[in-house]
């Protein structure tokens, strides 16, 4: 048999299509990445010419961009350039651990920074400053369909029969652990025992209809018609509304405070220090607020109006009972207890088990 037997007739149309797609991808790449360089303002500040590599989770990309814009207008920021990389929090953390160049990291959960501390890349004291290693903040909210047809008012409504829940999976998305903590502490911080909380979390996961691998996927799934309730973050709901994908949301009486960690790597460009100071300054926090994050200090003046919030004049209503990580003893106290995956024969976490049980019940 000669080789010609397997030779295909050239399909010019197909090649043309491929060429177009490749060209579009290349053009798209330059358009997207070109944006980062254009943030650099001309000038000769003390840090001019330095490049700060930001590696972060996906959600604060818009806010960080706005902060970078403001930073380059300050004395310390003039002439500083940025290179940025955004993705799933855990993936980004593992990428930095694996050698991705970073000066400053911004992750959804502090455990992703702890991974870098363990790897010797971030100073163990990163959380000893005034901001305790926290650079942005939000709360867990319950997204509902327009007009709230199932009359969802709080966590207890989620376990009623017939309510379908969409949430990112706390087992595969570190960021989704805030959601599970919200459900868990709704019981434990209101006088319930851990057994009660376990029962509640079991019931909650039984109502889950879609368990996505990221918060973004959960929002997409919800907007495409899945479920009645989306366990989400307030800042994501506001940002979605700013991007024309609004959904109503309810703030439960008891809910959890989301605290996103930020840190400098041990080896960083000198300008990165000024950058971190700027991020946690009132000006930096104002930019976060405008994109839907709650400022890390109550006295930050962000102008009072946040577009995309249900009431832009009062974007961040006071939560009756806001539970924080400090209240429950920090990540160390809950990481394995709730989310352990049974590695090396360790006991499986309560939430991990709830997720497993939820599937068996419907089998």
């Amino acid at each position, binding site marked *: 048999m000669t080789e010609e037997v397997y*030779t295909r007739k050239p399909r010019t149309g197909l090649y043309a299509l491929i060429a177009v797609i490749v060209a579009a991808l290349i053009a798209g790449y330059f358009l997207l990445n070109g944006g980062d360089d254009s943030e650099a303002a001309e000038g000769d500040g003390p840090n001019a010419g330095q490049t700060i590599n930001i590696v972060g989770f996906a959600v604060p990309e818009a806010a960080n961009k706005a902060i970078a814009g403001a930073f380059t207008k300050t004395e310390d920021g003039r002439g500083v350039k940025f290179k940025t990389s955004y993705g799933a929090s855990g993936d980004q953390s593992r990428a930095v651990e694996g050698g991705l160049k970073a000066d400053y990291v911004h992750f959804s959960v502090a455990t992703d920074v702890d991974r870098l501390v363990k790897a010797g890349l971030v100073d163990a004291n990163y959380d000893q400053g005034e901001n305790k290693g926290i650079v942005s903040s939000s709360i867990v909210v319950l997204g509902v369909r327009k007009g709230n047809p199932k009359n969802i008012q709080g966590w207890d409504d989620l376990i009623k029969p017939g309510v379908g829940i969409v949430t990112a999976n706390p087992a595969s998305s570190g960021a989704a652990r805030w959601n599970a903590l919200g459900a868990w502490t709704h019981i434990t911080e209101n006088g319930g025992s851990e057994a009660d909380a376990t029962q509640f979390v079991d019931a909650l996961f039984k109502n889950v209809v879609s368990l996505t691998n990221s918060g973004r996927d959960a929002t*997409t799934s919800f907007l*495409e018609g899945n479920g009645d309730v989306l366990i989400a973050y307030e800042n994501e709901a506001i940002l979605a509304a700013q991007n024309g994908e609004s959904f109503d949301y309810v703030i439960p009486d008891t809910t959890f405070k989301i605290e996103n960690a930020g840190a400098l790597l041990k080896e960083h460009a000198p300008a990165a220090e000024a950058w971190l100071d700027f991020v946690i300054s009132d000006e930096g926090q104002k930019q976060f607020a405008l994109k839907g994050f709650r400022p890390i200090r109550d006295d930050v003046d962000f102008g009072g109006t946040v577009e995309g919030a249900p009431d832009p004049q009062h974007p961040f209503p006071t939560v009756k009972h806001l539970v924080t990580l400090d209240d429950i003893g920090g990540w160390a106290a809950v990481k394995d207890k709730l989310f352990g995956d*049974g590695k*090396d024969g360790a006991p499986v976490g309560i939430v991990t088990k709830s997720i497993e049980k939820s599937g068996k019940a419907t*089998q």
Partner: protein
Amino acid sequence: MTRTSGIGLGVAVLWFSLLVLIPLSAVVVTTTEGGWANFWRTITNEQTAHAIRLTVLAAVVVTVVNVFSGTAIAWVLVRDRFPGKALLELIIDIPFALPTIVAGLVLLSLYGNDSPLGLHLSNSSWSVYLAFAFVTLPFVVRMVQPVLEELDLDVEEAAASLGASRFTTFRRILLPSLAPAIAAGAALSFARAVGEYGSLVLLSGNLPFKSEVASVRILSAIENDNPAGAASVATLLLLVSLLVIVVLDVVQRKVAQRG
């Protein structure tokens, strides 16, 4: 061995090693770091085992479907003349070209709860079959098509003139020539399905014991800083794929010999 063929072999082995052999070995090595006990515990975890079973079952079913539908599509594309054929030729490759996450979005909007077709397949195990079928559609078609194009009609006519029925002609004349291509397409189709992730995560809802696939379990293990666990599932899938490829090759040789 001539000098040039030696260079050719060297380049081929180097390229193959860099891209395939070394990464695959790394996966297996990572698995062994966790030890046999960890491997066994990981793959016998009920949730993981169910995810692996669903993945392999769906991959097998979809591959079998592809063997028939793919060969039929290739037949139509080669032997029939009809308006819009050129367009169909082009569209067949779209599952190749489309980024899988885009494919997932398309599938979700078509077969999700807001389905304009009235088909609600999201968050069920059907969604896994659907996503696999979508991304693997072109493999058998594209493997069989060029072979079919080069087959001489004379041979079939000769068989017919000697009194062979259409079925006998197909079984004794066509099938043995097509078998290697069908088997190669089936192997590609199975391997792709077993590792599929992007196109189904949005549609399937990743519900444990229902629509969760092996790649999602791998992701969960990685997220929990359990690379040995992730590698264990990957190694098992690797072994299953290898087995399927070997079985397909044996079957293909048997069928080809009957010609």
